[in-house]
């Protein structure tokens, strides 16, 4: 039975993806779970896997195309299936027009099975990718071409602007109003219209580096976070001697087994999960209609890559040993640097751990990675005089700054949580049980 393979929706917020590469050529066969294509989303390269074996009758979009989620990208058939008239079949499936799909702007694609790359057989004729029926219910935001352009340049999602035009279309004046409300009094003029980046020439005093998709996404998400999530900050400095001693002992034991060592950061990640278990009010995310409380502690880890910042999520940190957590972090960081993270690696959790200690940074404050409720910024372990029992003694300390979204979490909760975290890190044996 011939069927249409569609651009999978890899996350709720993805409306389009780039078909990076076809891994199975037209007319070639594939087995169950074979990777058919690689798709690039905002954050990751994802392989689309086959559900059951078959043959690729026709690919409908060339590599490099940006395609709407849900749009047909290929026609597949069962192994050995004979297709006498491919054109007629394409017609029947409603995908005869193989022009490169025009990306129709829309948002809030119905969230069907995120992360699934499976082909969805269609019962009836399907619309071509360029035709997106503006139904009342699909939440599409209408915006004029000019408004879209201005909003894009201003870094404001058009979805967040109230349209005052026909059918609530977002117009130039609406974007201007949104820009005015978000910019301080000393607002700078709107960015100049985008012009192609000029190549650096000898003697030029600057070089324009075109935005990568990831760079743009980071910029948009963090700008939105800072604008929408009211941040507050709580700070603590902990004594790290026991943490370091524990780590040394643990790594000595692991080395004896030829196992990989754990880092201070791995221990902090584990400690965050323990604190979440004790103060579950912190293990939450803000939603439009409700605050979501999570049952398990998934903790994201910020990883710097050549392509930009990514935050893969370590699963169920609370119930797993620190060595398993460390192994996960290592594996995720490695794949992040190769750009091979899957979309589901990037989803979930309520908090991120970001650590700049390896650069000697004493302390810093981070911007929350939406939809998380908090981000923990970890500074370097450093030698400092501390007061102990009324006497100044040499001590080893580490500073922590917790940025918190005030919408789901009040200050007291954050303070309690930080106190627990401090206690756990200062008495780290708890991390092992």
């Amino acid at each position, binding site marked *: 039975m011939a069927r249409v393979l569609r651009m999978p929706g890899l996350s709720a917020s993805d409306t389009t993806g780039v078909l990076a590469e076809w891994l199975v050529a037209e007319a070639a066969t594939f087995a169950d779970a074979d990777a058919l294509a690689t798709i690039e989303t905002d954050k990751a390269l994802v392989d689309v896997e086959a559900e059951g074996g078959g043959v690729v009758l026709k690919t409908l979009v060339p590599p490099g195309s940006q395609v709407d989620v849900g749009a047909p990208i290929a026609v597949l058939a069962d192994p050995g299936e004979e297709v006498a008239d491919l054109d007629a079949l394409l017609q029947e499936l409603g995908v005869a027009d193989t022009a490169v799909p025009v990306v129709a702007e829309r948002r809030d694609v119905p969230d069907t099975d995120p992360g699934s790359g499976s082909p969805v057989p269609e019962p009836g004729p399907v619309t071509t990718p360029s035709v997106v029926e503006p139904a009342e219910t699909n939440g599409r935001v209408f915006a*004029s*071409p*000019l*408004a879209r*352009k201005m909003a894009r340049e201003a870094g404001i999602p058009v979805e967040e602007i109230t349209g*005052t*035009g*026909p059918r609530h*279309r977002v*117009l*130039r004046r609406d974007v201007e109003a949104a820009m005015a409300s978000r910019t301080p009094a000393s607002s700078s003029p709107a960015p100049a*219209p985008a012009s192609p980046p000029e190549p650096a020439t000898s003697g030029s005093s600057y070089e324009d580096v075109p935005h990568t998709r990831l760079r743009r996404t980071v910029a948009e998400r963090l700008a939105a976070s800072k604008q929408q999530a009211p941040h507050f900050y709580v700070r603590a400095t902990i004594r790290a001697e026991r943490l370091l001693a524990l780590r040394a002992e643990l790594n000595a034991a692991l080395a004896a087994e030829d196992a990989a060592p754990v880092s201070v950061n791995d221990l902090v990640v584990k400690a965050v999960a323990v604190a979440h278990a004790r103060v579950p009010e912190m293990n939450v995310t803000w939603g439009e209609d409700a605050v979501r409380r999570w049952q398990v502690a998934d903790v994201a880890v910020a990883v710097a890559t050549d392509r930009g910042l990514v935050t893969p999520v370590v699963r169920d940190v609370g119930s797993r040993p620190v060595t398993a957590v460390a192994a996960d972090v290592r594996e995720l960081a490695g794949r992040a640097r190769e750009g091979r993270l899957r979309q589901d690696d990037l989803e979930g959790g309520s908090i991120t751990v970001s650590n700049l200690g390896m650069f000697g940074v004493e302390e810093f404050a981070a911007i929350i990675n939406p939809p998380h409720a908090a981000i923990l910024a970890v500074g370097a372990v450093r030698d400092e005089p501390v007061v102990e029992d009324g006497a100044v003694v040499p001590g080893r300390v580490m500073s922590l700054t917790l940025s918190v979204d005030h919408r789901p979490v009040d200050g007291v909760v954050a303070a309690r949580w930080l106190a627990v975290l401090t206690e756990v890190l200062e008495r780290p044996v708890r991390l092992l049980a």
Partner: protein
Amino acid sequence: MPQHRPLEPASPWVEVVATDDDWDAADPALLRTFLAQLVWIRAFEQHVLDLAGAGLIHGPAHSSIGQEGGAVGSVLALTSDDSVNGSHRGHHQFLAKALHHVEPKGMDPLAAPSEEVREVLLRTLAEIAGLDRGWSHGRGGSMHLQWKDAGAMGTNAIVGGGVPQAAGFAFAHQRSGTDAVSVTYFGDGAVNIGSTLETMNLAGAWSLPVCFFIENNRYAVSTSVEEATAEPRLSARGAAFNLASWKVDGQDPLAVHLAMTEAVDHMRRGGGATVVEVDTYRFFHQNGGFAGSAFGYRTKEEEKEWRERDPITLTASQLERLGLVEAGDADRAIAQAKAVMEEIGDVLLEPVPDGKPGQRRIREREWPDPAWVDVGVRGDLSELDDAPVVAPDGHAVEVQETKLVESIAAVLGRRMETDPGVVVLGEDVHRLNGGTNGATRGLTDRFPGRILGTPISENAFTGLALGMALDGRFTPVVEFMYADFMWVAADQLFNQVAKARHMYGGDGGVPLVLRSKVAMGTGYGSQHSMDPAGVFATSAGWRIVAPSTPYDYVGLMNTALRCQDPVVVLEHVDLYNAVGPGPVDDLDYCLPVGKAAVRRPGNDVTVLTYLGMVPYVLEAVEGFGQVDAEVIDLRWLDRASIDWDTIEESLTKTNQVLIAEQGAVGTSYGGWLADEIHRRFFDLLDAPVRRVTGAEASPSISKVLERAAIAQKDEVIAELTEIASY
């Protein structure tokens, strides 16, 4: 019982038959040239069929084999100053004219061809094969052969389409004071089409030296002449229009030459247009190398009878009888010509590498550059380099309140004064004190013979004007009394005028001005009330100007008359008697091509409009008051001349556009413009392109229905109200 008095045609209608005595008396050099030309043309045509059979000719190969006698016999009665044009089956006439041009003293059938003859054969073959070294760089091909230097003004693929143009060549010859003539070749199929009959009438009425040369080869594709007409003696058509007419055996070049010499003499002496009909036969089917009998519409016996009257055999036997050639000379001449054609073919062709034996292909270097596809749709406007072009904005000369219709007569008169080549033609333009609206008032008396009232035959007089323009010595100003009449002249306007420059290679100018009256609102109803701008805008080649003030009319008409492209100047009856700024005494300034006028600056919406809609839009904007509209009078409407810079500048400011016009939506102008604006300026738009047009129906006679069908001020206000509500 009524009496019956026999009536006679006013002009003679005769058949010319050549006897052996005539052959004896003929100039031996002429007779040898007959044979030489017949042989060269036959060898050429055979070579074309060979290439077509090998798949090397793209498109049809309309062979003239069998019909060469009429072409050679007639062309040798002409000189290079005389013009010819022809139909889709025109290789033989074109070659005869071109060979006669390069070898005016005659040719010898056995002599090796001169370099000039080889050049003619090579360039003609290249053109037919669609190659760059052809006469029109391969654009014209088999059916559009033009070499103006030789007086070969262009063959034509529309049946009868070239006939009116031949009357224009004749007009130019006559009005230039020469005795040159024009010959238009066509077949029994084209004799029944309107263009041909209209032109016979017009050429008769104006006594133009044009010969309607009918090759009656008995079949229009597969339809026999007896099926197509009750009068298969086709030269009888001449009697209907008082044209002197001859009928002659087309297989006998001397008979044709004798008849043609009489006809040419008649024309050179001022006797007016003529008809020459030759009976002839194409040995093959309509196109390609198969006999017609293979398709079942004629018999092998009939073909055999005609093949026995092959003009080459007939001519060779007479020359042998007269001792002008020896037995076998004709065969030797044919063998030589065939060998030369092979050599010429080898210039264009090469063996296919690893192909079958004898398999050939076009040499890569011979093809035209595909990037050249649109080059020469229009000219480069260099003809305006020395024109007194003024700034597009404001008034460069002193102005006063003037009626637009008076400016028309004034500027036309001024140009006729400074350029003796300008002639005006159209229905009733010479009478009624300046035509039906007074646009040519006073000109008939000032310029006798240059304000030409035509018979009611738009296709013929438009094509005649095109002939003048192709000739180049005259600049015709054609008036259409109503724009809707363009459909009557559609072939000439859109197949001929619009395409002529590009189709024949891109270099030849087509200086023709069409004044077309838009009469919506006058109660003339469904067939007299259209705005033609939208239709003309679809036709590459035409430039379109739409003057809304007397000042613009003068400047734009002056530019149009200098321009070497065809320009349609739209005139709206609403504006004829409206008063606006017009020049006091300077009638020589030109407005630049491609510059619009901002009639009212504004910030909220850009209104693009033209012609009679401009005043309505301005009134609407001022009257409504709530929308600060920028009103742009486009002035130049065609794709090449529209002012994108001004539109972009305005859209950058307003981010919204309204295209306002008056006419019916189906043929409306703004559709293509809206499409183009969306694609060019998408990111400037804060709203979809808005449009004001008339209704779907053509305007009716009934006053209220007519008003409802036409967009005016109220319709603009309605749209402005919509804009203001957001």
